[in-house]
């Protein structure tokens, strides 16, 4: 199975480990993610103004690239790209006038026809592969690893683009159970990390990270699992600031769901743990889940 794949900027920079672990685990499951050969910034964050069509040019241009591939789906990894592309898609599908205006403005591009379906990798894993199959393909069940799934915002809100029930999502819990972990839920699993406030309001993000991580730690989690590169940065790197504000805080490693999948599938070359601020390797070695060095 092959899917056109849109990486977005960060997966080529700080979140390289997310991309590598995703590509190898997908290949293991028989999915080839074929990167679009020409792509531009998705235009995150989705503009909420009713009169600002200019801000939709970038995401629609990406969808045109996807449309050219001839397949109806476009798979994304980054939650922010997913949200922006999916919402832009909904906007033009619902409003013919806006679609026309955008198409006529981008007169150097083929007209977008609304045919592309934007998917996040989690949806592919759930609906196209199926978690039972994933469970069967696990070679090393992550027994005894106590993980807390963290959804962030943009995969499950707003309702129109949510990949699962915004009030009670289960998709990460189900995937992590299939990998053999002990899944620990928390009331903060969908609380915003602070997103782009991390630029000049580091203390806000640090405070949020503290709250989110402590809610998991109090319930016995050893690891938090995310699906968004910005959430990852805010929960991982900003633990430095969080520790300054709350000295009693315990440092907790943050991982991407694809890294845990790689671990469970025995694909140790593509884990990418070296770039984390809080190293997850000690906890994993302690559980006997990481062989060798």
């Amino acid at each position: 199975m092959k899917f056109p794949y849109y990486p977005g900027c960060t997966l080529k920079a700080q979140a390289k480990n997310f991309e590598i672990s995703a590509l190898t685990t997908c290949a293991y499951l028989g999915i080839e993610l074929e990167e679009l050969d020409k792509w531009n910034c998705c235009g995150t964050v989705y503009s909420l103004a009713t009169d600002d069509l200019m801000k939709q040019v970038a995401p629609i241009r990406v969808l045109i690239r996807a449309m050219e591939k001839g397949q109806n789906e476009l798979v994304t990894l980054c939650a922010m790209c997913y949200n922006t592309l999916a919402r832009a898609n909904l906007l033009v599908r619902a409003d013919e006038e806006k679609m026309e205006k955008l198409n006529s403005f981008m007169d150097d591009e083929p007209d977008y026809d609304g045919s592309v379906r934007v998917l996040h990798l989690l949806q592919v894993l759930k609906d196209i592969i199926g978690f039972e199959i994933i469970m069967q393909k696990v070679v090393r069940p992550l027994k005894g690893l106590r993980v807390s799934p963290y959804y962030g915002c943009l995969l499950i809100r707003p309702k129109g683009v949510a990949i699962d029930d915004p009030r009670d999502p289960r998709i990460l819990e189900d995937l992590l159970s299939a990998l053999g972990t002990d899944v620990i839920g928390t009331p903060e699993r969908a609380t915003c990390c602070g997103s782009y406030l991390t630029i000049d309001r580091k203390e806000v993000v640090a405070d949020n990270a503290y709250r989110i991580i402590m809610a998991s730690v109090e319930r016995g989690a050893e690891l938090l699992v995310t699906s968004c590169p910005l959430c990852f940065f805010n929960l991982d790197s900003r633990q430095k600031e969080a520790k300054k504000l709350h000295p009693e805080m315990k440092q907790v490693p943050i991982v991407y769901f694809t890294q845990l999948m790689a671990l469970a599938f025995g694909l140790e070359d593509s884990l990418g743990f070296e770039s984390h601020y809080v190293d997850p390797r000690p906890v994993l070695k302690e559980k006997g889940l990481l062989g060798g060095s």
Partner: protein
Amino acid sequence: MPERIGVFVCHCGQNIAGSVDVEKVRDEAAKLAGVVHAEDYVFMCSDPGQELIRRAIHEKNLDGIVVAACSPFLHKETWQNIAKNTGLNPYLVEVANIREWVAWPHRNDKEKATEKAIKMVEAAVAKLRSDVALQPIKIPVKKSVLVIGGGIAGIQAALDIAEAGLKVYLVEKDPSIGGKMAQLSETFPTLDCPQCILTPKMTELAHHRNATLLTYSEIEDVTGSAGNFKVKVRRKATYVNWDKCVGCGSCMQVCPVEVPSEYEAGIANRKAIYIPFPQAVPNKAVIDPMSCLRLKYGKGCGLCAKECPAGAISFKNNERFEELEVGAIIVATGLEVMDASNFAEYGHGKYKDVITGLQFERLLAPSGPTQGRVIRPSDGKVPKEVAFIQCVGSRDPENWNPYCSKICCMYTAKQALLYKEAVPDGQAYVFYIDIRADGKGYEEFIHRAMSEHKIVYIRGKVGKVYEEEGKLKVVAVDTLTGKKVEVNADLVVLATAAVPSPGVKELAKKLRIQLSEGGWLKEAHLKLRPVETLTTGVYIAGAAQYPKDITDTVAQASGAAAKAISFLSKGYVEREPLVAKVDEDICSGCGNCVALCPYGAVELTDERVAKVDEALCEGCGACTAACTAGAISLVNYDKRQLFDLISTLVRR
């Protein structure tokens, strides 16, 4: 066939006279053949206007009248009543609608409008000349009423009907009557014991010589029409012989199976063989075939049968059907409350200590599963901090129901008050958006709850409830102070939205009545006819029409009963005689009309001619259009009359 016709042209103030030259219309009408009187007046429907018509009929010996005025929808009955009271046959009255069809649409062209009005009067006169005098069709009715639903609404209606001397059948799907009222702990604002005030009515009804209870039964099919309904009732299989059962309850003691009890709203269990509650009427046991071991597996157990002193338990499938013939039907199927599991932000039903208002009633009830001790379902401890959340699933057009469920503000206040009386050192919080206390004594009751019992009312919808260290964290914002508030509750009670009883949609189809938005039974007119439906002979009462408290329910039930009694009081109903008639000499017996009739009112006799059942015919005219021989046609609307009408209108 009138030959002395009077034409009355109304000005309707400026409504008609402003765009039509009414005097000219009157003058032209006077010239028509068959017209012996023509006059005009400012408001024909007013007292003096009506008097003019009366006088003219009397003085000029008129044998038919044409009123050129507003739509017949509004006033045809008025003109017909004048005719009736003056001894003129009311079916020799024609209306020319020169307001909605002439004056209002053609305001800008007085000349053309007047021309059209004159034509319409001419056409009306032409039709009237070939009309015949008719008498309403009298159909004898059955002096009996079927009440569907055995809650307080059904019980009250049935009692009123029985007391009026009519026979009443009450069909209830549960094994006992009593409905939601029987499940309550106390009623607001009087804090009466509902079982105490309800049971006398239940037993009175059960023993009334005019009443028959058919419990554990459902409506299978309804045919016929107003005054003569034939209802097929399915008496569900009880597997227990009710003639023998004395309601001693020994069977329940020995039954090994436990399942959630419907009467206890799921917070306690019942046995597979059960009497729903101690005051059940009738006090008879039924076996639930889904949970009974003997019925599920065909063998084994049978402990109840061995224990039964009356030998009443047969395990035989005694389902049977009964046919009832009734003149009127009252639908009082009540309401249900939404289950807590619907609401993801309040725990999706996962937390045992997040319960609905109805479940809390059972905890409070002195005869309930905890004998009125308020304890947490999870661990039996007494809760010291209780949060009551209103508007769960109501007033929420985006996610659930847009309507207000009406009773929750009051029952929540009552529950909080009763909780404080049961646990004086506990604290109760009510999270609300508005407080609706619109009955007698209601506002005073809310005051009592707040003032005497220090119940804290927080104005803000709860965002979420989650479990933390054995307590339930309730997170909301008090919009009045603008601050976030958090309660570590031991128990959370959700006032979930009221919804129509399940199965109402199918029942409405069988009865040919409509439902409003939200699935509530639709009344004929929201303001003026709240207990009738648009289907003659079928009435509605109680929460089935819209959520309401016991006071309003009882009032509405008596209202519906009065309507039903009045409808049947003459012993017959009168139907409009504008039905189809067959000229048997012309009828070829092709049967087209039989197949087409949507009311099943036409059939072929043994002599192969069509025959119309006047009781069922609604005068729609489908048969008239389809008849190839021209043998069947509507009385006073036959084909020749219509041709005359049309040719009058198009003639230059």
